[in-house]
């Protein structure tokens, strides 16, 4: 990688692959699926060049299993898929959440359900990213809206995964992943790269699921002299299974609240014109580009619209959205699903707040004028 900024024309999926390597990814296991395959295709060439490992596995279940294993052995590991494959990965994703194994899962959303519309864009997996695997659990999901962000958000996904011992889902969509545009790549030396906390205790005293103040126990890599047990069963601080109800409460509450003290760092969003707004537009991923344009157009037409773009989808930016919703009566939410995030916003806002949904499930991008129309009708 160059020691200067380089500007290139690049596709979103390719940018995710390059961002992964820049973020320290040295292991990829996956099974090809449209519209994510360029991530694997690119990494099959670039990972061996940096001493990393690329494996095309027999299916998605095995791919996610391999990612969990590689991460336990100390590699920053990733897989990439789309809806049907994301369904298959849920079992081992749950394992990674429970065992607190850092990992990155790229889900390039296409039309669903089932095999759906393979070559078309969607945001139908928003709730699957949140609740696709069973049981109460925490998860981080981020959504890029440009090729450049595909790169840097992937770097950040690895940082979040390592720092908080968690799977991180890069929830992108066919439109952004297959978009080709200009990207400026900064030298790797300018990137902030985070690594998992290693134990300071001796192997004899090490507790892999210790109740620490931060909520995130240090993680020893297998093969470095620390022997411990990893299971999907509820476990105590040693990692061995437990059926004790108090211990189960303790560990599960730590797991489910482990992001709470760190929301300032995990949550990421950008706001435009929310100071003087009369109406709020909320969007993420591909439709957020149209939403920003719609904000500009509606302002030119005399409606003071404001805009918030969620970059972190999960955990949800609850406080921020509550705060913004107090300033307006109407929130316009364009999504390429039938209102998965709109439902979350409705839970946080009073009945008097009007939620105007602009939804597509046919795979076509939402046009700026559709959002403008929604804004104008509600003025």
């Amino acid at each position: 990688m160059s020691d200067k900024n380089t500007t290139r024309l690049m596709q979103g999926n390719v940018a995710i692959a390059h961002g992964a390597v820049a973020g320290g990814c040295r292991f990829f296991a996956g099974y090809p699926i449209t519209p994510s395959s360029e991530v694997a295709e690119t990494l099959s060439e670039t990972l061996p060049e940096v001493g990393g490992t690329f494996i095309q596995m027999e299916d998605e279940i095995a791919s996610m299993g391999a990612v969990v294993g590689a991460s336990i052995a100390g590699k920053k590991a990733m897989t990439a898929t789309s809806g049907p494959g994301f369904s298959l990965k849920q079992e081992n994703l749950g394992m990674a959440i429970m065992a607190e194994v850092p990992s990155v899962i790229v889900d390039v959303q296409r039309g669903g359900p089932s095999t759906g519309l393979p070559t078309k864009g969607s945001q139908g997996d928003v709730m699957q990213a949140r609740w696709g695997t069973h049981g109460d659990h925490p998860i981080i999901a981020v959504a890029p809206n440009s090729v450049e962000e595909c790169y840097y958000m992937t770097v950040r996904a690895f940082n979040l995964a390592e720092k908080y011992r968690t799977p991180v889902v890069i929830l992108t969509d066919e439109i952004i992943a297959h978009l080709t545009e200009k990207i400026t790549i900064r030298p790797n030396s300018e990137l902030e790269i985070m690594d998992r906390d290693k134990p300071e205790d001796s192997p004899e005293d090490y507790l892999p699921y210790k109740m620490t103040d931060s909520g995130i126990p240090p993680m020893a890599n297998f093969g470095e002299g620390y022997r411990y047990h990893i299971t999907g069963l509820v476990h105590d601080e040693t990692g061995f299974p437990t059926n004790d109800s108090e211990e189960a409460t303790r560990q599960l509450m730590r797991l489910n609240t482990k992001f709470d003290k760190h929301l300032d760092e995990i949550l990421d969003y950008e706001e435009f014109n929310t100071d003087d707004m009369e109406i709020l537009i909320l969007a993420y991923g591909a439709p957020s580009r149209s939403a920003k344009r719609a904000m500009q157009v509606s302002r030119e037409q005399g409606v003071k619209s404001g805009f918030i773009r969620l970059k972190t989808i999960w955990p949800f930016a609850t406080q921020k959205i509550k705060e913004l919703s107090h300033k307006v009566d109407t929130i316009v939410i364009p999504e390429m699903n039938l209102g998965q995030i709109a439902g979350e916003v409705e839970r946080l806002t009073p009945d008097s707040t009007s939620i105007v949904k602009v939804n597509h499930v046919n795979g076509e991008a939402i046009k700026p004028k559709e959002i403008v129309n929604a804004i104008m009708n509600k003025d």
Partner: protein
Amino acid sequence: MSLRQEIRLSGSGGQGLILVGKVLAEAAAIYDGLNATQSQSYGPEARGGASRSEVIISDGDIEYPKAENLDILLALTQEACDKYHKDLKEGGILIVDEKMVKSLPDENYKIVQLPIIKSATERLGKFIVANIVSLGIIVKISEIVSEEAVRHAIKARVPKGTEELNLKAFEEGMALAKEWMKTHSTLVK
């Protein structure tokens, strides 16, 4: 508002229209210093089926990366022409292959009907470079990007070993357009 030019390249899967889109976007964004996006829409088939590639070129930010109001439409099949010509703005440029597209829309477009596939097959010996012949026509007629930028982008984007063939195809397309402009100069700037 800043200059925004929208180009759609349409035909069937396997005609190399996505590559043309990437070359055009690269010429604009990397070599001509503008902003450009390229996106695509295609079916699940590896060959055949409707395929389209869209390029937006602007001197400002490009928020919405898809075409809404086309300045230029290339149609290499009748189906593509029938389906997409309505997205052209009034006075927009419609470029079609004369053999594949026989039925032309009766609208106020600048219609450029040329033997694209025939030139690729007979003069260059490869049906497959019809896409780059088309690119030559687009560039010559619209002047949307510089010819030199496109030559750089072709060299950077086409498969290794095919650079010369593709550059020849580009020149062939420009020559076709130049010849056409001699007799249609009043229609197009």
